């Protein structure tokens, strides 16, 4: 479970995150929805302790990120906005590097890797160097790398960005699977349909603030719009940054 309480973060005079509060529960998919530049990536970066909030608190499974950042990172699987694979290493070596950094035993590492390779259908690219990978192959490798330590909480920053239809469908099935395994899945997106289809809960962010935190049905009811896209536009007050 991930709890975020009144986070603030400013870069100079720009308030990137200005009072964000929400809870992402285990066994649920929580969507962080907002237009580009709304503060989604900055919020997520504070969750996985890459950035320190100016104020506010982050709790992952009850552990305060400010107190024990290493324990927090151990409980998280993170796909950052920047995928950042090592292009001179193969997909297998990329995955095993992160497994070693988590201190996973060799045998367990092989088991976990095999499971992820099956689930993500990436057998054919496993022993190729990642230089020249397609966007979809890169995302698969980065996700396998991020989840090799079997984390209870999964954070995915715009996971379907740049993927084609087939790859997107595959990724959605994978995320539902993570939910079925009882994990807490938190992902950011600016695509309405995707969030509507996947999420148990939607946290809408605009200009660094939470403007709604509901289930998709409740969101439609709250705004009086049958269509989620219209509901979203109404919430953030403009059509700026909407790329469906």
């Amino acid at each position: 479970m991930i709890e975020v309480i009144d986070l603030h973060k400013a870069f100079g005079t720009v308030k990137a995150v200005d009072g964000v509060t929400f809870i992402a529960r285990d066994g649920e998919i929580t969507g962080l929805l907002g237009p580009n530049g709304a503060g989604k990536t900055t919020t997520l970066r504070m969750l996985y302790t890459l950035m320190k909030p100016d104020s506010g608190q982050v709790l992952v499974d009850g552990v305060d990120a400010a107190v024990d950042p290493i324990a927090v990172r151990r409980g998280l699987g993170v796909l950052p906005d920047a995928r950042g694979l090592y292009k001179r290493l193969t997909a297998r070596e990329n995955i095993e590097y992160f497994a070693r950094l988590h201190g996973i035993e060799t045998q367990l590492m092989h088991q976990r890797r095999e499971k992820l390779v099956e689930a993500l259908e990436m057998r054919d690219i496993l022993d190729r160097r990642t230089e020249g990978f397609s966007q979809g192959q890169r995302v698969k490798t980065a996700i396998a790398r991020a989840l090799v330590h079997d984390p209870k909480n999964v954070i995915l920053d715009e996971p379907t960005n740049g993927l084609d239809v087939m790859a997107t469908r595959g990724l959605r099935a994978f995320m539902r699977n993570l939910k079925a395994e009882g994990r807490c899945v938190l992902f950011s997106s600016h695509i309405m349909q995707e969030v509507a289809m996947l999420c148990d809960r939607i946290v809408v962010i605009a200009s660094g603030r939470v403007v709604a935190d509901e289930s998709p049905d409740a969101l439609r009811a709250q705004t009086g719009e049958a269509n989620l896209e219209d509901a979203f536009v109404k919430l953030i007050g403009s059509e700026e940054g909407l790329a469906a």
Partner: protein
Amino acid sequence: MSAMLTVWWKEVRENLRDKRTVFSALIYGPLIGPVMFVVIMNVLVGHEMKKAEGPLKVPVIGAEHAPNLIGTLKQWGLVPQPPVADPDKAVRDRDADAVLRIPADYGKAWSKGEPVQVEVIFDASQQNSGTPTKRLESMLKRYSQEQGALRLLARGLSPSIAAPIVVSERDQSTPQSRAGMALSFLPYFFVIAVYIGGMYLAIDLTAGERERQSLEPLFANPVARWRILAGKLGAICSFSLASLILTAVGFSIAGHVMPAEKLGMVFDLGPGFIADAILLELPLIAVFAVLETLVAAFAKSYREAQTYLGLLMIIPIIPSMMMGFLPVKPAHWMYGIPLLGQQIGISDLLRGNPVSAGDIGIALVCGFALALVIGVGTALVYRSERLAISA
């Protein structure tokens, strides 16, 4: 396997797959010194041998006024060349190393027994002119002394009357020390090998990772950043150590193929030299690794880091230049100054003087202390939020 070792092994393996890094760290860096050494020494030897033993070709103006003098000088190796119209211009333009001018009244003055003035025209700022001018002058001096002695004998006096002081020269330099003087540039190549050996890794592991946006996922792992930094520094040190060992071995091999004995020089570049030289340079490996990483952490891109580190390469030249232009008497405290200590230490080893364990100890302690100070600074920069964010 601990996190530090994991990072170290990944970086070493990844960079061994990069042709540019391998070429500069393990081929270009270590070989440039020994190759330059062999080339320069061969040119130097060839040049000096030719000057010292070959026929001395000097334009002579007014040779017809002193046939006896010219005849004797010819026996000693002079090959008179046709006179030149403007001797000053000839030596300035390096058409001649030196010009000898004999005045028209030479014969008249000689028969009266009066001193005769002959002129040797040369340009001391031309390095080439040194040896020929010296040879010509010593021939003239010898001729003058012999003729003077004959004149004294003709008057029934002992020639020793005209020589109240006899100078006997005793050169205290040994063949090794002469070799060392000729090679004051050599320690610089050791430093450069260490510097270049780690440079591309330092750039790649910090500025490069940042540019490729792989620092962010790396820092999301449950490993303290200083451990990641330590692993990366370890990889940089491994490459520069490899470069240093290759350089030392390269010089050792070069020392065997050198025509040094022709110059009266002896190089003792055996295993003892290799071991001492590597030991002396060890702290520089650490100093450069942290310094290069620190600089690379400030750069926003690979290219920017490359530019900064290229400029920084000037620093190690300073002690070599200083020792070359202002020969200072080495003192023990100098071993405490990184770079300077390595410069005088390696120069001493080349001269065949052993460097004491105490001096090596001072160099090691002070060098590693400096590396530690810079290292703490680098670790602080590594903790900053700014470092991981590429976009």
